[in-house]
């Protein structure tokens, strides 16, 4: 578990320094693989059957379908790159990790602090990506990162939500990505770019 947590955080930190969309999607896939593995390990430890199903669902939906659809979009977006202040978002990500481990793991003492800290850090890094990045795909990657963080949080504090709710959440995430991919396609088709900073007309 410790190794997985470290890998997960390392992936998230690298994500803040990536400018190529395809690399970002790749790291996202890697992240989801680790979350699936975490499910599997908890399943092996606790012997709860529904953790295996959750692991399979994560693998199929987050690693398979979502990464595949994002990957297909990035293939069409050859000239798109993220230009942002990477040092700044890197610094913020590190601060988020320090704060998560420093404060949050002390707030809920009954919970093993290790995964909890990582989960909160992942959620915050995802949120930061949505706010700081302007590339549509990067924002989607941020959203999934945030969702992965929340999922991990659920795992660490309650051994996961009941299966039917979990399935609903997976389905929602999948549909959200489909909707966002459709919108991204339209952005590319209409404006030749998927940089969302051009979306600044509606005011007041």
């Amino acid at each position, binding site marked *: 578990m410790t190794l997985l947590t470290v890998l997960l955080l390392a992936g998230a930190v690298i994500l803040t320094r990536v400018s190529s969309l395809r690399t970002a999607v790749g790291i996202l896939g890697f992240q989801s693989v680790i979350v699936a593995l975490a499910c599997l390990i908890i399943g092996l430890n606790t012997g709860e059957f529904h953790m295996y199903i959750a692991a399979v669902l994560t693998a199929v939906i987050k690693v398979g379908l979502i990464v595949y659809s994002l990957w297909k979009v990035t293939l069409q977006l050859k000239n798109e790159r993220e230009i942002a202040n990477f040092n700044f978002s890197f610094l913020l990500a590190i601060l988020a990790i320090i704060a998560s481990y420093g404060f949050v793991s002390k707030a*809920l003492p*009954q919970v093993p602090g290790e995964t909890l800290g990582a989960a909160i850090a992942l*959620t915050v890094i995802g*949120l930061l990506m*949505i706010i700081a990045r302007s590339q*549509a795909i990067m*924002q989607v990657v941020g*959203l999934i990162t*945030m*969702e992965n963080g*929340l999922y991990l*949080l*659920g795992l660490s*504090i*309650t051994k996961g*939500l*009941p299966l*039917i*709710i979990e399935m*609903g*959440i997976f*389905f*929602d995430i999948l*549909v*959200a990505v489909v*909707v*966002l991919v*459709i*919108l991204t396609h*339209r*952005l590319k088709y*209409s*404006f030749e770019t998927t940089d*969302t900073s051009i*979306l*600044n*007309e*509606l005011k*007041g």
Partner: protein
Amino acid sequence: MFELILVALVLPIIIGLITLPQKNLTSIRYTNLVGSALTSGIILAIINKITEIKVFSSEFLYVDYLSAVLLLVVALLTFTATLFSLPYMEKEVKEGHVTEAMIPRYYALLNLFTFAMVSVLVVGNLGLMWVAVEGTTLASALLVAFYFNRSALEAAWKYVMICTVGICLALLGTMILYYAQVNAVGEAHALNWLYLKEISNTLNPSIIKLAFVFILIGYGTKAGLAPMHTWLPDAHSQAPSPVSGLLSGALLSCAFYALIRNVIIIQGTIGTEFIHTVLLGLGILSILLAIPFVLIQHDVKRLLAYSSVEHMGIIAIGFGVGTPLAVYAALLHIINHAIAKSSLFYLVGIISQEYKTRHIKEIQGIARVMPAVATMFVIGVLAITGTPPLNIFISKFTLILAMFESKMWLLGGLILLLLVGVFAGLMNYCLKMTFSNVPEKMKPANVSPVALTAIGLSICLMIVGGVYLPTFINEILTKAAEIVIGG
């Protein structure tokens, strides 16, 4: 009862699926008209059944008086929205804003949206309720983006991003709630609403308080409470007008319903003081933030959208005051606001189609161009600003009365003052648009009778609702208020 709910859920999906492969516009129209009438009829049957059996609860479904109030809103609005969509979309095709091939997709998405809203109201599990609320965002996102032009894409992108991030925080809150439940009584009946309500006094207060903050931010974002309302004016102004009506009247109310369901659990654990203070604060903030935008607005649909923010603030204040009378008024206000605001959005849809603009200064002399529409528009604006004897006056008056009754003199006075400001702003625009001179290029226009029927229905309800409240609605509202208070 179980069968009725199941039919209400499955019917919109079936109609959507039937609509999707069709090419003939006339048959699409009839399918959807009949379909939405059937759906609304079944929802009304559910409400009727609830007045007999009071509570229906199975493993995942739960319907009581509180759901009945919101089901009434959804039943009314999906019908009027579908009815109004028929002439509106026909005209959009004629004007070339949308192609014929896009029409089946529109109706299919509209049905999906109805399904998502009904499912928010009939599930009895806070986790599944989260799934359903997120489902409403996704079903409506492509409707907001329907025209696929620059501003529609911008609005839809912001809508999905802000609402999904917000709703993710609500998921975090729900997980914390589940954590509290597991710690207190174990994993059985996970997040089942009725069960949680029974055991709410055994939960750990400090954890529940944490959960409340996240749940409030999450569902508050979806309900359009300031300062999380930033997606709302964009999405409401860019969506097709029937959809704007649904978004403003039904969707915001459904999000509010999800919030209230959670609050009922939470107040059983941490008491009402903290919750009421926060709701009052957010409500006042929503009204305060909306007013300057209402007063200096140039886009008529954005004007209505900011007025929705204001009304959500009023509803939040109603729940924040928290006396039985105030909650009753807030629930009545949800119904009244939904009827009035949706019909205003439909009217503005007709107006902007005729004038080919949404710019307030360019819309002049509606009274000459479309007398019937102008009359309804003035009645609608009078209603939304709370003028007697129309319906919203009753709910606002009851709410202010409840405030004075619980000795909140200052707050009541402040709200009255703010409402006068909104009245002045909205009436100013309304009268200028209606009675100024007609621009030269405008000729008297023919408005489709179907569209007038759809709006006329709401106008009738607005006028009747101002002078007479049927006893069964009164009963539903009173019982629902008792549920919210914690009875």
